[in-house]
């Protein structure tokens, strides 16, 4: 009987795992087929949302799994985007000084712009620069046990600092306008539809890789330590884990993913400005994850794509209504679905499976009773 129940429980778990895999596979297949049905403009837009989904995965790791609310992820996204934008700008200006630099009276290319002539360097740095900044900030804060609201406020301050810095240093960063007017990427014209579709699939490829990477992380014992830190940091500490190291590491991964998202965002959208790094976009990013469902990777991806799709639909129809709309939906989600859409899905699934397993259990119980010769109970 023990063995029988064990088998049932195993298949129950497998069913749920299968359902989760099914949803995410379906989502990826739909995204892969989408360009066949959508106009170039829509495909491009969806490609941007895919970049956002990568960022949402990063936020989910740090917030959903580890319980640390970062309200400054725009900075990491922006840094990744600027790294890529510097490469694109240099390619567009054909070895000459970028236009905005000459407007601000800059005569020579600043030293830190020089490595960005090379595409591989730019791509690698777009992940590394955010990760290293996160390493420094994370190490200092987590080691000193700054947490909760204090950490969130700190990340907001970081966001303000970077916006001010990037607006102020016009000669190096393009100021408020940011960096724009790109022409080609690796020699292919950005305006052509084949380049756009290719960029879309590159973004989708990276999203799938990022998803598999994050799933590997959360399913390993490392992922369980993250949840342990979220649930009871003290207990984790007295189980022999050093939370500061784990938090710093996951913060770096999260920032790296945000940087990657930024690097995929820029060639598709064609501009990066300090506005993208501000507090408002940073908070919006957290809302995507909240609506999609924190603590599940599927939720983060769905949240980012769905909320942004709604955003573009609502703002096309009623330009002024968007901010009310997102505000209301956020409040509604917090009150009615604390675990977001993914939580809702899980609830429905659980209902279906409990009914199913009740049937299985009862038939198994009948079998056992019959085997042990307790016919009178069965009858």
């Amino acid at each position: 009987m023990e063995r029988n129940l064990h088998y049932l429980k195993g298949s129950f778990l497998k069913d749920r795992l299968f359902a989760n895999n099914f949803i995410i596979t379906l989502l990826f297949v739909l995204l892969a087929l989408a360009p066949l049905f959508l106009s170039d403009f829509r495909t491009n837009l969806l490609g941007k949302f895919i970049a956002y989904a990568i960022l949402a995965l990063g936020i989910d790791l740090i917030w959903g799994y580890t319980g640390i609310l970062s309200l400054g992820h725009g900075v990491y996204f922006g840094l990744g985007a600027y790294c890529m934008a510097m490469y694109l700008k240099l390619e567009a200006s054909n070895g000459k000084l970028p236009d905005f630099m000459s407007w601000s009276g800059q005569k020579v290319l600043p030293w830190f712009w020089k490595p960005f002539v090379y595409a591989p360097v730019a791509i690698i740095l777009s992940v590394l620069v955010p990760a290293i900044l996160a390493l420094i900030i994370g190490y200092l804060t987590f080691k000193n046990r700054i947490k909760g609201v204090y950490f969130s406020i700190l990340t907001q301050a970081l966001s303000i600092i970077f916006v001010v810095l990037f607006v102020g240093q016009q000669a190096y960063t393009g100021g408020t306008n940011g960096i724009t007017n790109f022409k080609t990427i690796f020699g292919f014209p950005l305006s052509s539809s084949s380049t756009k579709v290719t960029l879309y699939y590159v973004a989708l490829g990276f999203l799938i890789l990022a998803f598999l990477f994050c799933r590997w992380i959360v399913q390993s014992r490392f992922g369980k330590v993250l949840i342990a830190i979220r649930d009871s940091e003290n207990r984790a500490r007295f189980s022999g884990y050093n939370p500061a190291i784990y938090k710093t590491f996951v913060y770096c991964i999260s920032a790296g993913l945000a940087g990657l998202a930024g690097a995929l965002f820029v060639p598709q959208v064609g501009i990066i400005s300090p506005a993208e790094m501000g507090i408002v976009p940073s908070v919006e990013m957290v809302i995507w994850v909240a609506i999609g469902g924190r603590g599940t990777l599927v939720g983060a991806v769905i949240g980012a794509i769905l909320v942004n799709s709604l955003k573009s639909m609502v703002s096309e129809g009623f330009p002024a209504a968007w901010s009310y709309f997102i505000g209301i939906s956020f409040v509604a989600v917090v009150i009615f679905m604390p675990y977001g859409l993914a939580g809702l899905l899980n609830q429905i699934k659980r209902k279906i499976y409990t009914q199913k397993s009740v049937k299985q259990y009862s038939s198994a119980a009948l079998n056992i009773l019959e085997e042990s010769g307790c016919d009178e109970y069965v009858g």
Partner: protein
Amino acid sequence: MLDAICGRVKPAEGKIIFKGIKDVTEMSEHQIVELGIGRKFQVPSVFMGITIYENMELAAARKRSLYSTLFTKLSKEQMERIQDVLQKIGLYEKRYRTPAALSHGEKQWLEIGMLLVQQPEIMLLDEPVAGMGRKETDKTGRLLKEISEKCSVIVVEHDMEFVREYADKVTVLHEGRLLDEGNMHEIQENPKVMEVYLGRGGEGCD
């Protein structure tokens, strides 16, 4: 005092020497755990978001670096130990559930179990039977008695009946100083202890 030994608070002065070599006041909490000092808090604190088995896994792992949590699995011997302990604390059947489904007493046992798979040399427990019924208290007592055959168990407890039944050696502290030490019978006969813990009440009555 338990907080000072396990590194949660740093004493203003003085040293705590473990096994005659290491001064634990200089070390951080997770290093102290590596030394073999396990700590349980008064309020049950287990990880609610992962299954009971995973709770045990985290505690049982000997290597707790980033690398090993990402790339290594537990050894066969560690997994067997987890199963043994789960049987002992009576949670084996529920191992794939999350601790949210457990009662207060069961959570306490889980936490004790987590300490146990850490294989500490000394186990510090802060009021492990607070909030438990008689039956649960007895079970906890038997569990601790069994554990104490393999490692030292230090319990801070106000439940005198529990202490009388299960303690080998009782230490009475008063205002941070040692008042008396011995078996329960000796302690109860000590006039100083009676004065401090019973006497004042008596005076009040007069």
